[in-house]
């Protein structure tokens, strides 16, 4: 289907283009101008793509050749023919490409020089003699440091980098089986931390060098030059390379978007030669890696009854053996009931090939992941990506077309709790199924259990909550070399996302409190789209004069994002009624649209002398509609330099030292994460009242906004040393950075008494410093049949808040406090001393209103004889102090093996689920709670259960604070390449077994220390039940045709 659409799309464009061109008068600059004006007029649309396609396809017609010299090009390594090698007759425009079998033919006269060039091989020159046949054997280009990496709006040789750019080892990264490319970064790069969730299609949080903003810390993602917010919609299998730009110097070219770092993703490009087809398929089985130890029916009834007795209440009939309603026949293990095996299916098919004038890579990817929780929840994605690229003479051109459609059935949780939290806290005396209740699922009653307990299985099976996304991206670019070294590039891209979210909550009875009446049965439908248009014009110039190498770039970058949303809500559905809006008893609807525009001037200068001294400077000026007119401009710049010690003649290094480079950088960037129009106060006209039973419209200002809100600023300094030993087999990098963020946008909490909603104002009221070391080392040994590679990376991080809030007022989060001089979101809680053992103990201790014997005794930190909020203390940082990754891979003959460990540590986690399970109320309990204090069990640290918890035993305290350190065997893979006799169809076939999240070393008792907490929030260390990452075992096969 997609293919047909695409084909049609091309056909339309091509036809239009042809007719446009054919109808051009000969001397047609004016006409072109008109055409251009037309494109200009239509710019937010796809017109630019059309224009670019014109150029692209028109160049097909320019091929011309005469036949004189023939030959075959082969690889010096294995003697295989090389298809697509470019052959140019030096000093002329005559050129040719080798065909699929390496044959070439080019018109050339004796004495002329043929230049053979091919990616990955050293180019070679041959002078033509009298012969009419020249066979050439090209040598592989083996210098590892000559690897070209993609930097912003350009490329650079890895050895010439003066900023902090980490190149991801894709072979290793790709062994992480995921729907999200971002997840593949976990543990691969020093200084990059990833938090993920086990929810199929759930979001992944990435931080580069810690938290430098209170609002948004996710890096910018650039896929093939296109700026995207997250790589969520793109298939990971298609990725060719990933670079992480970590410091201000390397990210400065992205200006206000680059403050959190930039991840540059490059998808596979067409390679010259025959059609190469690759198919990769895997199926994986997911299971929850760890479950909570919760009480069964008897344990639950014992604890809850004790809680009621301690509160002077009667025992709930369902828990009372003397009652006729005593429950003995239900003993639900909710986790056992809910967890099943989730399935991952991933098929990927790619086609690659082409000629120099047009090469292609097309990838089709299907991903499906069903949840390991018994529910309709799953994630399915179909994606297509086509890259076209080619060159002809002074022109280079390319295009990208991507289409993704995904369907995610979302998990549902009740207001204020998470699905996992509700699941583990569900009472065992509630049945999963109950035919007597509307909907067929069990519930609790006020009369019998008294517990308000959500049947998560029922809730999720009844509710239909789906999100569909369709995303089209198109990018087209052309480059012309006006004079030697001077290139002009034009790049237009279009990114459209259409989404449709539906949530239908049918009439049902899930027990007390979770009754959905007909009037409450509702359908919410939300559809919308976001169109993003980027238009870049860049001019670059490079000049080599003797030992001086000079590169410059200047450009104008424009972007526009238009979003539209239309929502409808229908309420009032009979049980079984068709869940469409028109069947609702009442409907309401609304719409909104937003526009964000930006215009930036970018520039960069690189200078290197004798491959010894490297200098780079960047400047970018941004203007954005996100801020008011007088605050909408931001200047960003950076400088960096490097010194290649090893290339100095006066320094004599041992032979085994191949490379030493020192580099340093400094730069200032911005961050503009703020919703549109957030500087202009508006009125809300829905604040009505009713008089005489009729609606009386009401209008008022609801929210407080700061009209002077402006960009966040970010300054980073970075020093590093890079060492390569033993012909760069062993490479080592050590780096130190300091990142100062100022003018940070904070939703500063306002006292309730201001009357504003939300009770906060977003303003530039924060500053933070992040600093840390990053180390990475890689050792490759490819010299024997047993080849192996070991790499490791470690990043440390220290975060310190330098300024916060209005008047330096600290900001409180969930069990946390953020204040100047400490790190963001440190845990802030009471300290426990023990348990009140008797009345005398109680009387002798500082006043704790309503405390009783068996309750927790808290520490009177300030010594005022009373336990109050002033007695809370800091109890640990929530940002890991260090994170690391270790990779080992080896191959021997047909076998390959790899193992990847990653971890983080030095941080504390507030285990909120554990708190809930230890609260001793009507919800289910942790088995630890069985050891509760009573007059006969006094040697314990678990307080008495008591309904109402009058002493607030469950308040934020060290009882629920745990170390977040973990080390995880994230991936292990064994592959075997099946020996295949030479044939024309299958070239290579490989099978593999991959395991993920296989083993975790941690003292954390929650489901997963790698949990996804709120981004940039003051409550980072608060685990309230994220979906634990599953354990996954996959089997896969890869075939090349």
């Amino acid at each position: 289907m997609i293919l047909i659409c695409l084909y049609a799309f091309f056909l339309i464009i091509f036809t239009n283009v042809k007719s446009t061109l054919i109808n051009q008068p000969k001397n047609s600059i004016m006409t072109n101008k008109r055409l251009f004006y037309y494109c200009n007029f239509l710019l937010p649309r796809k017109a630019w793509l059309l224009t670019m396609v014109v150029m692209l396809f028109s160049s097909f017609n320019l091929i011309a050749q005469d036949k004189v010299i023939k030959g075959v090009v082969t690889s010096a390594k294995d003697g295989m023919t090389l298809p697509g090698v470019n052959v140019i007759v030096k000093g002329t425009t005559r050129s040719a490409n080798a065909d699929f079998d390496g044959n070439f033919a080019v018109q050339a006269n004796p004495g002329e020089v043929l230049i053979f060039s091919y990616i990955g091989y050293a180019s070679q020159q041959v002078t033509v003699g009298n012969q009419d046949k020249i066979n050439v054997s090209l040598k592989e280009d083996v210098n590892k440091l000559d690897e070209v990496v993609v930097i912003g709006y350009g490329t650079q040789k890895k050895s010439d980098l003066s900023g902090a750019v980490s190149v991801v080892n894709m072979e290793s990264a790709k062994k992480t089986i995921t729907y999200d490319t971002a997840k593949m970064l976990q543990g691969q790069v020093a200084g990059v931390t990833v938090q993920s969730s086990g929810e199929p299609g759930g979001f992944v949080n990435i931080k580069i060098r810690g938290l430098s903003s209170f609002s948004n810390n996710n890096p910018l993602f650039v896929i093939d030059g296109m700026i995207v917010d997250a790589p969520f919609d793109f298939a990971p299998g298609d990725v060719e390379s990933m670079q992480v730009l970590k410091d201000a110097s390397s990210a400065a070219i992205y200006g206000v978007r680059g403050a959190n770092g930039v991840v540059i993703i490059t998808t596979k490009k067409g390679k010259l030669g025959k059609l190469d087809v690759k198919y990769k398929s895997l199926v994986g089985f997911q299971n929850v890696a760890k479950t909570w130890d919760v009480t069964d029916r008897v344990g639950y009834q014992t604890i809850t009854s004790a809680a009621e007795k301690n509160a002077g209440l009667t025992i709930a009939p369902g828990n009372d053996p003397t009652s006729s309603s005593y429950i003995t026949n239900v003993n639900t293990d909710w986790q056992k009931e809910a967890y099943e095996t989730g399935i991952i299916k991933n098929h990927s098919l790619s086609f690659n090939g082409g000629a120099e004038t047009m090469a292609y890579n097309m990838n089709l990817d299907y991903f499906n992941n069903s949840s390991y929780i018994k529910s309709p929840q799953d994630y399915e994605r179909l994606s297509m990506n086509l890259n076209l690229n080619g060159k002809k003479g002074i022109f280079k051109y390319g295009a990208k077309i991507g289409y993704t459609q995904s369907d995610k059935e979302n998990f549902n949780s009740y207001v204020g709790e998470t699905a996992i939290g509700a699941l583990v806290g569900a009472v065992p005396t509630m049945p999963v199924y109950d035919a007597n209740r509307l909907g067929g699922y069990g519930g609790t009653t006020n009369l019998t259990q008294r517990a308000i307990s959500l049947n998560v299985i029922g809730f999720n099976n009844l509710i239909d909550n789906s999100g569909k996304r369709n995303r089209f991206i198109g990018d087209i670019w052309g480059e012309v070399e006006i004079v030697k070294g001077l290139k002009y590039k034009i790049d237009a891209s279009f990114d459209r996302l259409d989404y449709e979210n539906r949530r239908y909550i049918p009439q049902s009875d899930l027990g007390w409190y979770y009754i959905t009446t007909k009037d409450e049965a509702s359908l919410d439908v939300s559809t919308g789209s976001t169109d993003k248009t980027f238009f870049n014009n860049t001019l670059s110039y490079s000049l080599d004069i003797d030992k001086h190498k000079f590169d410059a770039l200047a450009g104008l970058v424009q972007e526009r994002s238009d979003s539209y949303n239309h929502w409808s809500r229908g309420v009032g559905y009979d049980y079984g009624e068709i869940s469409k809006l028109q069947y609702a008893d009442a409907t309401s609807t609304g719409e909104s649209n937003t526009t964000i525009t930006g215009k930036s001037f970018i520039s960069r200068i690189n200078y290197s002398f004798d491959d010894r001294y490297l200098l780079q400077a960047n400047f970018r000026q941004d203007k954005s509609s996100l801020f008011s007119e007088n605050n909408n401009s931001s200047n960003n710049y950076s400088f960096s330099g490097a010194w290649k010690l090893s290339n100095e003649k006066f320094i004599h290094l041992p032979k085994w030292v191949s490379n030493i480079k020192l580099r340093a950088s400094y730069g200032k960037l911005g961050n503009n994460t703020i919703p549109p129009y957030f500087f202009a106060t508006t009125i809300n006209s829905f604040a009505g009242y009713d008089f005489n039973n009729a609606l009386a419209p009401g209008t008022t200002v609801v929210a407080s906004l700061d009209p002077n809100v402006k960009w966040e600023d970010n300054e980073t300094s970075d020093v590093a040393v890079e060492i390569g030993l033993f012909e760069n087999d062993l490479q080592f990098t050590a780096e130190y950075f300091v990142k100062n963020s100022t003018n940070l946008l904070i939703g500063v909490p306002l006292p309730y008494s201001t009357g504003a909603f939300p009770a906060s104002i977003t303003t530039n009221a924060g500053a933070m410093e992040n600093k840390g070391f990053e180390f990475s080392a890689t050792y490759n040994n490819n010299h024997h049949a047993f080849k192996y590679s070991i790499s490791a990376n470690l990043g440390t991080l220290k975060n310190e808040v330098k300024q916060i809030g209005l008047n330096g007022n600290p900001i409180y989060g969930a069990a946390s406090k953020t204040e100047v001089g400490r790190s963001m979101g440190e845990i802030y809680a009471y300290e426990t001393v023990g348990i009140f053992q008797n009345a005398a103990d109680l009387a002798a201790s500082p006043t704790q209103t309503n405390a009783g014997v068996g309750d927790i005794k808290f520490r009177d930190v300030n010594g005022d004889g009373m336990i109050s909020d002033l007695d809370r203390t800091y109890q640990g940082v929530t940002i890991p102090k260090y994170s690391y990754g270790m990779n080992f891979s080896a191959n021997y003959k047909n076998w390959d093996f790899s193992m990847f460990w990653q971890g983080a540590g030095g941080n504390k986690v507030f285990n909120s689920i554990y708190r809930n399970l230890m609260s001793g109320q009507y919800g289910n309990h942790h088995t630890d709670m069985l050891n509760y204090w009573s007059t006969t069990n006094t040697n314990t640290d678990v307080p008495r259960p008591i309904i109402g918890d009058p002493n607030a035993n469950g308040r934020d305290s060290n009882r629920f604070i745990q170390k977040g350190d973990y080390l995880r065997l994230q991936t292990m893979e064994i592959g075997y390449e099946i020996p295949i006799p030479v044939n024309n169809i299958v070239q290579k076939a490989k099978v593999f077994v991959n395991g993920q999240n296989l083993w975790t070393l941690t003292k954390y008792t929650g489901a997963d220390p790698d949990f996804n907490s709120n981004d940039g929030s003051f409550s980072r260390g608060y685990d309230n039940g994220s979906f634990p990452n599953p354990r996954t075992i996959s089997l896969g096969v890869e075939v090349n045709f």
Partner: protein
Amino acid sequence: MKHKIYNYLAGFFSLAIVTTSCVTDDDLIQVDPNNDAVDSFWKTDQDAIEGVNAAYGSLLTDGTYMRSTPLLLDLKGDDTRSNSPWDAMYNVGRFNSNVSNAAIYGWAYETYYQGIYRANQVLENVPKISITDSALKNRILGEAYFLRGLYLFHAVNMFKNVPVPTQIAAIYPQKTEAEGWAQVIADFKSAAEFLPVSYSNANDKGRATKGAALGYLGKAYLFTKDFPNAKIAFKQVIDLGVYSLVSNYRDNFTDTNENNSESLFEVQFSRSAGGVDLGWGGAPATGWGKTSARAITYGPRAFGWTDVQPTFTLFNEYKQEKTTTNQDDPRLDATMFYNKPGMMLYGQNFATFYGGNAGDLNDLFCRKYQNSDGAYANEFDWRSGINERLLRYADILLMYAECLNETSDTPGAYTYIQMVRNRVGLPNLATTKPGMSQAQMRDQIGHERFLEFPLEGHRFDDIRRWGWLQDPVKLAWLKSRDVEFNSYATGREFFPIPQLEMDNNPGTIQNTGY
């Protein structure tokens, strides 16, 4: 062909640099297309009306009369008890609200100030509008003063030392209780001056009136023990001559006889106005209904959540005195459901429905403000349209009687108490208990008010202002009536200042006892 295309391309490229742009400088200025800017508002009569309507709007959300405020006012009294599984509710009546979890009481606090903010917007902007109709302008300002006074009344009454915002500012510092009351009194005075006695247009039914302002002014004086001024204010209400008691007591608590002659001010709920979504709070949206969640919260078991139940003390006290026709006080059946032959609730027979469970059969459930007279099967749609009567004429009469007693006119109090007793057919107090002393009359007024206003949020206000919690005898007596008083601790007659206020309003001091 080849050269021609090169020319075209060259043309494109050179022109591109010069002419191309998808973002012009004008595009860099974007205005919110979805909401009007505040600068365009506060221009017309209609703007002024909509502005003040929004200030009323804050009465309808969760923090105020949709749910939290009635709960917070009722649960601490000896007329109610709570077995709610939600600790934030359960602990209210046990004087044990959690300082670190501001659920319910914090929502109330937040919403009172939201209402004040909206009223202040009116008071700040409407005077600048050139409204030709000065009566309209005065009325709107009067309404805004009334509403600000009303929200502040709640805040001071329940949270003691609170900020007193009288004009829009960034931060409002904490003030003393006395400063708070002074502003409440000033606001109700201004409101009484500006507001009309009644509205001619039926569509204005439910707006604040002079009577409401005077009634609350009297109440504010009474709560600050300024009995002479309270007496004057209540007398002014009585002398307006527009209020009278409705003959059927229960007409004050259903949706069939709203805004009646007994009502000075009520929060207007309606199932028919607005959308059907529950307007809990936050930024108002089009779909919001104007309904209350009180009925489901207080509702009898299996018809609602039963978070609030009447006490047996209340039940028994109704049984103390029979009517002149030797019947039970009719207010008993109007107030609660209990196992009485023939008692019906939501179309079901009480004895039959709860017959299977002795615990329920012998329990007491709330009836006041429940939609239980037969038109609805239960409260589970959360949407009650019954107006919450904030100030009834019966209250004016009893408060006036109290003022008379406190200003040494104990005999004069009999007249006004009896007006309230007569409605429910109770015998003449002057006959049954003649010649009471001032102290005896105080207790009598306590008893009368207990039976007239249970579940209406007045009982605990009375207990607090009468100083019973500081009186060991009275406190012991309260504990004997309602075990929830056992966990009372000094200072806990007020709620804690919410943590968010403590944390973000520098210098705020927590109430004693927390």
